[in-house]
């Protein structure tokens, strides 16, 4: 049985456990700023978008952050590491309310709430961004990877700048 089939035949409890693990690994990777590893959570042909709910609900196509391939994710990491100028910060992400919507033609649909807390120097920790993940996953190389990850955020206003991924 290949891995894709293995995932397809997992019972819902085991699948959920796999997903909990995956999201914990994903947020740990970002919280610990191991950004170089971040693209590895995605397949080559992927879509990663951070979109204000305002645009999403009106069907307006503009994203605050748009990556249309794994290479593009890596370019974002290069920018974070090498080109962008920004104040030091830490970010901590919480994921909860994970809902598994099920498989459709080899693609697993998952939704979850997320909160990203930001801590800047001289300031108290604040809720930086919160919203919903709308994700599509596929089995790839023995593990589940994101084919699509949409972060639809609630607040109309971004507190200054969005530098690290969600």
């Amino acid at each position, binding site marked *: 049985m290949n891995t894709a089939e293995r995932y397809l035949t997992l019972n819902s409890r085991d699948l959920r456990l796999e997903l909990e693990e995956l999201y914990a690994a994903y947020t740990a990777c970002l919280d610990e700023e191991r950004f170089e590893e971040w693209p590895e959570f995605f397949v080559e042909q992927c879509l990663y978008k951070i979109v*204000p709910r305002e645009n999403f609900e009106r069907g307006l196509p*503009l*994203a*605050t952050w*748009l990556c249309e391939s794994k*290479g593009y994710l890596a370019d974002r990491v290069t920018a974070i590491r090498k080109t*962008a100028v920004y104040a030091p910060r830490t970010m901590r992400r919480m994921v909860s309310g994970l809902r598994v919507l099920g498989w459709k033609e080899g693609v697993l649909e998952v939704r979850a709430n997320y909160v990203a807390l930001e801590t800047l120097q001289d300031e108290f920790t604040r809720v930086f961004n919160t919203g919903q993940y709308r994700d599509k996953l596929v089995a790839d190389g023995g593990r589940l990877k994101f084919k699509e990850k949409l972060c639809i955020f609630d607040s109309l206003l971004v507190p200054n700048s969005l*530098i690290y991924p969600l």
Partner: protein
Amino acid sequence: MGARHVWPQEGISRIPYWIYSDPEIYAREQERIFCGPSWNYVALEAELPRSGDFKRTFIGEKPVVVVRDQQGSINVVENRCAHRGVQFCQRHLGNAVEFMCPYHQWTYDLKGNLIGVPFRRGVKKQGGMPADFDPKNHGLRRLRVACRHGVIFASFASELEPLEEYFGPSMLALFDRVFDGRELRVLGYSRQLTPANWKLMFENIKDPYHASLLHVFLLSFGLFRADQPSKVQMDATGRHGALISWRGDQKKTEDNADMKSLIDNFKLQDATLLEPVREFPEYTVVMTTLWPNLIIQQQSNTLAMRQLITRGPAAFELAWTYFGYAADDEDMTRRRLRQANLMGPAGFVSIDDSEVMKFSQAGVGPYPEGAGVMEMGGRDWKDEQHMVTESVIRAFYAYYRQVMQI
């Protein structure tokens, strides 16, 4: 203005830091600049295609509503009930046949006329408004409106020149370059709150000198360099300005060696971000700043209005409306959306600007007695055929000082 508000004797080559943090200055700006004789950008007509469509926005910090009435004309009214001041419109965009204030249900038509006052004649012959209460005298305050090629401006002033004159010929030509009468299509919104004085945003976008130094991303990918053919332009008053650049031959030269952050052999893994097509004549990038609240961005194929909304002396909101043309094909729309990654709160380039503006406020706020040195490219202001200049910022402050009488 008190004794502490004395502009340095060097004039516009010095910018005193008290202008970025003083509440008295901020209040004076609201009154003389945003509520004064200025045309403020409020919306694109493409945001309000049908009658009844409205947009809630701000001029300076004052809430207003832009609405298309049943006759198809655009009205801009204060978002403040004529009864007791409630900000009655709370949705960013929507459609309405009339506006009703929730507090006591005073109701206004789409031109701002008061058309309904519950209990006006009292209840069971008790109470009610005085017999001489005339709804005609209690409508919403209407602002003057000017539209050009799909872009809507409004003014609190009762007297001011027509929009075209206000822009002046050189800025009007740059405006018409993007807004040539073609129908526009809104691609989406982006909004950010930057903890800095609003003028720092204008200084940033009127400063071509920083772009080849601060923005390592632009340099690394050869998108902008100090030796690029470029120029800066202003109107006759200095209040509006434009930074213009276009592609030319560039090599790594001695001058560029000053740009410490130049990274060789830097390549994007996914180059689709940087695949612009030639769309407008002559120039690849034109950043136009129109007094007092608008930046028009044409950076290759990304087009955006950046509207400045003040939030006290030490914060401003930047409301981005990205757009294209209704006739764009899919490829063009995709290109615009991709290149949008350079700008906005998560923009490869704009991140640097919003962060640096915050650092600026953190430096100038606590030191109101200090002053900035603005001498790059001279001490006066005029159009230049290069970008190694702070001329456009000096022009802005020359006009600012006149309006503010400081």
